[in-house]
């Protein structure tokens, strides 16, 4: 919303942070208002307010991290910040679209900004590779999305979500095959964006190559945005049409859970590990999309919240550790338990939260997802999800084992106030919402 490009470099981040805080407040102000702008292009309802609030909050935390992350690269700070703000703009559009063109615009705004940011370490080959790979594959997905939208427009005669819903309800018996084709293409594109299998191949490479801060941003904000949009799409249009979308999603959920968790077992790079962990979390979230008939938006919100908090906490520790050890492997954490017990304890909490062990929000989120999925009758998928969360424990614990079990390396960790702030805010909120879930779970 505010792409403030100001020449006073030192003030950019504080101003952005304050600006975001103001927007956060303004956004909450729209609660229960249900406004629609530009011929239903943008609709502000409670769903978009809640997810928008989460997205802004995550961006705020990432910006707080960015002052230290870009401490040596002041020259381009304004560019980075403005591009990151565009990501947020795209995300906000993706929560509040009322029209498929708006969805497409949102996704493109978000993605193009991210293509740039993924490749923003210009002299690093891996970063370039990440940006380029993400761009190529992302463009394909965008093509799919656009083609799907076009086909749906062809059959229904409208981009408007409500009109599409009306069409599916009125013509339940004779929906045109073109509509299904369009639907499948759109589902594929969305599965790509949420990095669900079998469209997940970009995620590990891009996460690994991109600068750590951008990885943190991608693995939280982009996931929230993509799932918000996906959920809205599915609950508004496709679910009343047929079992076909369910079948695709069911297969995708099972594949995502299996691949995400099994591949994570073999990883030695922390960012890749989190990439696969993100894929497996996409699997759990796909379960929510599957049970969209129960209106589990609260569960979706709660889970993305818990996941983002734990992931950001993990990155708030990982980034300074990477910086001091000059390595991004899991062995960068070796012996952290002896050198810096407080940080190691915090990292353990983040990992336990991601693994879904009580009392953190991750557990409650999983529990709710499983109840919803079982209620919708996805018996085997839930069973697989439960087993994959068991596998998940193993690889999250690899980090804990490295911290406490391996001999320490000699690097000293420089930990600045900003990292500490984000870290403890995230952990405290994760614990808080883990203990008092009901306000968030029943938010809608």
């Amino acid at each position, binding site marked *: 919303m505010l792409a403030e490009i100001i020449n006073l470099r030192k003030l950019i981040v504080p101003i952005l942070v304050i600006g975001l805080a103001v927007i956060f407040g303004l956004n909450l102000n729209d609660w229960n208002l249900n406004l629609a702008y530009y011929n239903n292009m943008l609709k502000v309802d409670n769903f978009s307010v809640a997810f928008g609030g989460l997205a802004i909050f995550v961006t705020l935390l990432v910006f707080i991290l960015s002052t230290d992350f870009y401490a040596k690269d002041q020259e381009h700070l304004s560019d980075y910040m403005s591009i990151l703000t565009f990501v947020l703009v795209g995300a906000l559009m993706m929560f509040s679209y009322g029209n498929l063109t708006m969805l497409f615009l949102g996704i493109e705004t978000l993605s193009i900004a991210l293509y740039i940011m993924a490749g923003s370490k210009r002299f690093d080959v891996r970063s370039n590779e990440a940006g380029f790979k993400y761009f190529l594959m992302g463009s394909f997905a965008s093509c799919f999305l656009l083609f799907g939208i076009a086909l749906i427009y062809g059959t229904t005669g409208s981009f408007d979500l409500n009109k599409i819903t009306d069409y599916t309800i009125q013509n339940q018996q004779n929906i045109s095959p073109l509509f299904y084709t369009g639907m499948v293409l759109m589902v594929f594109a969305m599965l790509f964006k949420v990095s669900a299998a079998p469209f997940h191949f970009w995620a590990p490479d891009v996460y690994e190559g991109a600068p750590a801060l951008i990885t943190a941003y991608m693995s939280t904000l982009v996931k929230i945005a993509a799932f918000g949009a996906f959920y809205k799409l599915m609950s508004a249009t496709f679910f009343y049409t047929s079992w076909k979308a369910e079948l695709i999603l069911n297969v995708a959920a099972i594949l995502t859970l299996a691949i995400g968790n099994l591949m994570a077992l073999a990883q030695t790079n922390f960012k890749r590990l989190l990439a696969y962990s993100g894929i497996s979390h996409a699997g759990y979230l796909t379960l929510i999309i599957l049970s969209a008939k129960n209106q589990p938006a609260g569960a979706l919100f709660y889970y993305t919240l818990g996941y983002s908090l734990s992931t950001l906490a993990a990155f708030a520790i990982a980034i300074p550790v990477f910086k001091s050890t000059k390595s991004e492997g899991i062995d960068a954490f070796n012996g952290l338990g002896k050198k810096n017990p407080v940080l190691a304890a915090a990292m353990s909490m983040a990992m336990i939260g991601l693994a879904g*062990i009580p009392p953190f929000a991750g557990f409650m989120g999983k529990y709710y997802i499983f109840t919803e999925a079982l209620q919708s009758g996805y018996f085997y998928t839930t069973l697989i999800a*439960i087993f994959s969360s*068991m596998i998940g424990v193993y690889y999250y614990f690899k980090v804990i084992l490295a911290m406490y*079990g391996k001999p320490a390396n000699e690097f000293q960790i420089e930990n600045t106030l900003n990292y500490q702030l984000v870290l403890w805010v995230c952990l405290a909120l994760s614990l808080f919402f883990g203990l008092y879930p009901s306000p968030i779970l029943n938010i809608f």
Partner: protein
Amino acid sequence: MLSLTLLFIPLAASLLLLFTRGGLSRNLALVFTLVQLGLTAYAYSVFKTDGATAFEFLRNWSVKPFINVHFSMDGVSLLMVILTNLLLPLIILSGYNRETERPHVFYSLILFMQFALNGVFISFDGFIYYIFWELALIPIYFIAFNWGGENRTQVTLKFFIYTLAGSLLMLFGFLFLYNGSPQHSLDWASLIANPSCGCNQSWLFWLFFIAFAIKIPIVPFHTWQPDTYKTAPTQGTMLLSGIMLKMGTYSLIRWLLPVLPEGVKEWQSLAIALSVAGIVYASIIAIMQRDLKRLLAYSSIAHVGLISAGIFAMNISGLQGSLVQMLAHGINVVGLFFCADIIFNRTQNANVEGIGGIRLVAPKFATWFMVVILGSVALPLTNGFVGEFMLLFGVYQYNTWLAVFAGLTIILGAVYMLRMYQKVVLGKPIMENMVFPDLFWNEKLVLITIGILIFVLGIFPKPILELTEPVLKTILK
């Protein structure tokens, strides 16, 4: 509110301990566990077997999914709480003449463990119970991992994954009960009121049974146990064997028998057969063991096998015997592992063959070790006898032949325990062992307390039986 206080004291103490250093942490931990013990004694004094309103705490936690925070206590819970809070001071006291690295974290984890264990025993909502069940796993994992012996990385990870796998199966079971129950509630009272929730109990049984069987452990789910007991620091082993495995047997009584009665009936014979097979199998392996801690670990499998067999016999004497024996076994096994630790600490030798003639240099230790061993081989007038007798009687009522095989535990138990004692304490003196200081004050205190408990409960078990009878009758109904 008393139930909340029981949870609050150890939790607050565990957080407070993180800010202390050195010997102070240990002293504070002891003080807090003693306060907790006092509170438990008070709870026992005000407890009335017919109604437990004084301990009731019920608040809604979340509307959708519907979850209540429900703490309460009946006789069985109270017995388990007594066991936990009685053993904790002893466990902490037993560490007094040992040097522990970073004691503030160590004792903080132990107190956190106490918090979680108390929570498991007083939760009456399935979801809350599950959370405490999981919470209990985290501190013990870190205790075993950070202060453990050789191979700790692999052993403790295996332990963690193994038990967590079981817990997740149980979680799946709870999800099913939640969806199947008419009010969508996991409250214990509503679950036992509608035991046939429309679910297929015959495989729901296995979801719960495997989770508990891993924790107890019942053969063939026991493979994590000997390694973990050996690797964990002694105080961790005491927690694991003395209290944590009682979580499993307690849960059989609380969450399996009354909630899934049809499933239990269907698989009762198989469950008893597994338990009895475990008794014989573990006893035979124990006879062959030369490592002191492993021997005790296998003997523990044999004892809890009998406990679970008595539970699955589903009659009043089996259930009561199991409760008596849970208390007795908790006390005895802590004593046994403590004695093993004393021996290992002074001889640096874990192998039975390398130790001998300790009696000559440490007569007091020899005496109290004998008392503990007698309790554990179920000599009449010791606590082990009461429990095992009732358990065997319970199994006998179910099936004579199974009782005969289960009875082997007493004979085989006497074989491996007494042989070990003979070799280690009485046997031919080995020169390297002759520098064996007799008991220190804290060791004396722990072992004498355990010894007194062994005889008191053996001679006068009536309070336990009175405490638990009404609950067991409702469960069996």
